[in-house]
């Protein structure tokens, strides 16, 4: 941040102190079922690849694609209907706080949030029967001067494991706030 002498930064010490902060371990609550995997693979349009006789089909019906853990966290049976909020405000964007990480919010006056990019590292394939767990942390928070004003890049790294602590994947999202 070489230009911090000319431009006041919106990153207070309280905000930069959040770098490295971990959120709670979240559980998807229920194991991945064959039926959910089937619907997921159909929606993802996983390509069906011919395989040699005697080898497992591709896509597998018992092993999920490597990015599956990102989608394991859905509304549980007794959680309230998020669509109820539409009664009060029919113009809501429909995100309903999706992507909750449990991390403390970053209080900066930049409202727009763009998904700037992703990096992911895969260790083990998620399997039917796995209960996905996830823990997120602020990997980095940096301010940049864009052409249209200041922006803050918030990198959130999430580590996904199964119910036994087996490491599945680690995913870092760069959210651009401007």
């Amino acid at each position, binding site marked *: 941040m070489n230009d911090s002498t000319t431009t006041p930064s919106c990153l207070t010490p309280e905000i930069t102190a959040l770098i490295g902060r971990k959120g709670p371990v979240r559980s998807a609550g229920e194991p991945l079922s064959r039926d959910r995997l089937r*619907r*997921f693979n*159909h*929606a*993802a*349009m*996983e*390509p069906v*690849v011919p*395989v040699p006789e005697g*080898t*497992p089909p*591709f896509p597998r019906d018992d092993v999920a*694609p*490597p*990015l599956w853990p*990102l*989608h394991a966290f*859905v*509304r549980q049976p007794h959680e309230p209907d*998020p*669509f109820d909020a539409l009664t009060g405000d029919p*113009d809501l*964007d*429909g*995100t*309903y706080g*999706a992507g909750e990480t449990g991390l403390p919010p970053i209080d900066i006056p930049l409202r727009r949030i*763009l*998904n*700037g*990019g*992703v*990096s*992911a*590292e*895969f*260790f*083990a394939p998620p399997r039917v029967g796995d209960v996905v767990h996830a823990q997120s942390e602020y990997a980095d928070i940096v301010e940049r001067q864009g052409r249209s004003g200041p922006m803050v890049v918030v990198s959130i790294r999430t580590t996904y494991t199964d119910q036994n602590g087996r*490491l599945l994947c680690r995913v870092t999202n760069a959210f651009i706030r401007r």
Partner: protein
Amino acid sequence: MSRAPSCPVLEELAAGQELPPLVSGPLLPPHLMRWSAAIENWHRIHYDHPYAIGHEGLPGLLVNGSWKQHFVVQLLRRWAGSTAWVWKVEFRFRAMNVAGETLTAWGRITDVRPAHDFGLVEVETGIVNGDGVESTPGTAHVLVPRRDGPAIPEAREELLAALGSSVLQG
């Protein structure tokens, strides 16, 4: 440009080889609706056309970034088969894709090198639409076996950690 062989092994790979491209589309509103429903993401810009255009000022229904990241991984895994391991991917969301577009995921090998008992392949990846506009430029790393080498172990966390510190940064 030569085609990278499937069931890749280190000795048969070289920079410049291209992965078999993966084509999807035209991606129509039903495709986006099915994806949103499967992952229970109710953001309206992906399935509510009047909302996407009138409220958010978008040119159409937005193809989900979450699906595009799967699409790139599909390209890599279809090529890697069951003997190689797609280890790392990274990409930027540089441009929007909207309903109606046909998208092609592509990959080109940029580097091949030995890594312990295996080979490490760096692949440049992306997604282009029918107009050739690149929306999702990225890089991937795929671990491949050697021709007469051992299979990539089932428990690969330790191996990848060792590779991560010796071959790649972070």
